[in-house]
């Protein structure tokens, strides 16, 4: 292959390779800028992902709530989950549809084993902080989950696309919550 052609093709490829992450950035930035904020009640569980460092996997109450609707009919299919907000200000899903609902905000998700696989079930943190966030959460909750600490995911939603903005524990962003803990010797 002649060099000018080779270079031209390489440039096209390079642009394509950069376009993939950049399109992800642009879409998420738009959601963060223009999307409406919802608070999804959650509890953290910490796993490891080789590529992405440690993250806090969120067990979102809203993801399991679709049990009440016949979620099994949607098994392994894409569904549009309509968001409703309760009196306490927390977000839940009240309905699953095969097309975007005509009014109100919704999240596009897949149904797997009767619960929703949501696009905001991971919060990435430093590998030391992620397990700490989880252990502090459970310390406050007690072994049987009888304690009281509020934990929710702040999610921005725009036209079915959702971006997890921050994770709140005890009413504070998780980084701030961990910062304010008494330092262990």
């Amino acid at each position, binding site marked *: 292959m002649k*060099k000018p052609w*080779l*270079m031209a*093709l*390489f*440039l096209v*490829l*390079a642009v*394509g*390779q*950069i376009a*993939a*992450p*950049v399109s*992800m*950035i642009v879409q*998420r930035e738009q959601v963060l800028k223009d999307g409406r904020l919802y608070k999804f009640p959650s509890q953290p569980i910490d796993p490891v992902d080789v*590529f*992405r*460092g*440690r*993250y806090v996997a969120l067990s979102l109450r809203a993801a399991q709530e679709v049990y009440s609707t016949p979620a099994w009919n949607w098994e*392994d299919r894409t569904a549009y989950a309509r968001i409703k907000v309760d009196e306490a200000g927390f977000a839940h899903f009240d309905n699953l549809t095969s097309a975007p609902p005509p009014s109100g905000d919704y999240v596009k998700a897949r149904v797997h084993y009767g619960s929703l*696989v*949501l*696009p*905001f*079930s*991971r*919060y*990435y*943190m*430093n*590998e030391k*902080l992620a397990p700490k966030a989880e252990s502090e959460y459970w310390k406050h909750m007690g072994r049987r989950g009888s304690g009281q600490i509020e934990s929710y995911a702040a999610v921005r939603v725009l036209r079915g696309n959702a*971006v*997890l903005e921050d994770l709140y524990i005890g009413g504070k962003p998780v*980084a701030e919550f961990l910062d304010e803990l008494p330092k262990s010797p």
Partner: protein
Amino acid sequence: MNKRGVRWLYAELPGLVSKGVLSRESAASLREHYGELPSSVGRGAAVIVLAVFGALLIGLGVILVFAHNWQDLSRPTRVVLSLAPLILAQCLGGWVLLRASGSTAWKEGSATAIMLAVAAAISLVAQTYNISGDLPAFILTWMLLSLPLVYLFNASTPAALYLAGIAAWTGNVMHEGSQKLCFWALLILFIPHYATAMIRDAGGFRATALSWALLACMSVATGLSIEGVMPGIWIVVYASLMTSIYLVGTLWFDDAPSAWRRPFQTIGQRGIVVLSFILTFREPWRHIGWHYYGARGYQTTFGAAADYAMTISLTILAVSLLLRCVRNGKTTSLFLGVMPALAIVGYAASSAFEDGSLAMILFNVYVLIMSVAAIVGGIQHERLGLLNSGMLLLAALITARFFDSDVSMLTRGVVFILLGIGFLGANIWMLRRKAAAKEPEQ
């Protein structure tokens, strides 16, 4: 004679001529007969391997450093840091294409670095925006964005990574309907690179390494791409696949000097032996065939048709290769080459009678003959490796049948002792025989 032997001979020639063992003319005709030694590829290959490993280590290092996920950095800074390795690697790649396009090491190294940087960029952006992600979609995007590097840089390391990637993708979507069949389309995209390497130098390092990668990928992903509407069809598919691989090696790569240089025979032969051994157990023959058609819930009719197409075409391929071997006088390949026929007979019998006993007996006898043939061949040709492989296979077969059946501990013990004595005795006998054969020469 292999290259090492020729090199040794050429080093000996001046001494032999000076001592009068060989005439100058004889030495010259020997040189003419064996031809010029190819320029030493050893150092070149080492430089390429080092460049590739360097790129791999730097790429993985960058991923790990960024994956540390600095909480203190702002989102825009993280975004810039996510894209920086990719842009740097692309600049290096551009420089290589412009200024160092003659260097295989630079081309392999920079293309590998770009491929890893693409993965790093997507992963790090996903991390920055807390994107839960979809692993198969990530792998597929990464592979398709990296494949052109293989052709633009004529680089085989990204090609091997691509093969690993598409196999991993197939494994991830194996329960997601028929999309796993796209594996074959993705594999075809690799073939032009492989064909070019084979046409240039079929016995060379690049073609051999690519053959290993291709065969390993196919050995894994073929099974993952089977829908399995007709349970147990994998037995016929794998029997035909391994036999075809083995026969391709026998037909076209029989002269290669070492097992590493004969990937087709090495993988095909071992594949046939391992598969046959697995088929001596009852488990693979349980609940298979048309009585259990569609017993698992998630299969599609399209997937079933693809299964049949794969089974029939691989079987036809194996049979035609076997006929060609026979026509070319390579009758020794018949023994391993009949394995698909046995698999089909076993499969049909297990399906018809809903009982795997006949198939089990068939494969136990086959593996028994295989192991005895290897032992006898090892003794006849004084090949210790072959003898030991045969004995190992025989021991494995006997051990496996012990655990299947109600044989008393005492009998098991005695047979194991006898097997051990057999192993040691045969090895000592063979080594002595070899030593005795060497003595008269000295």
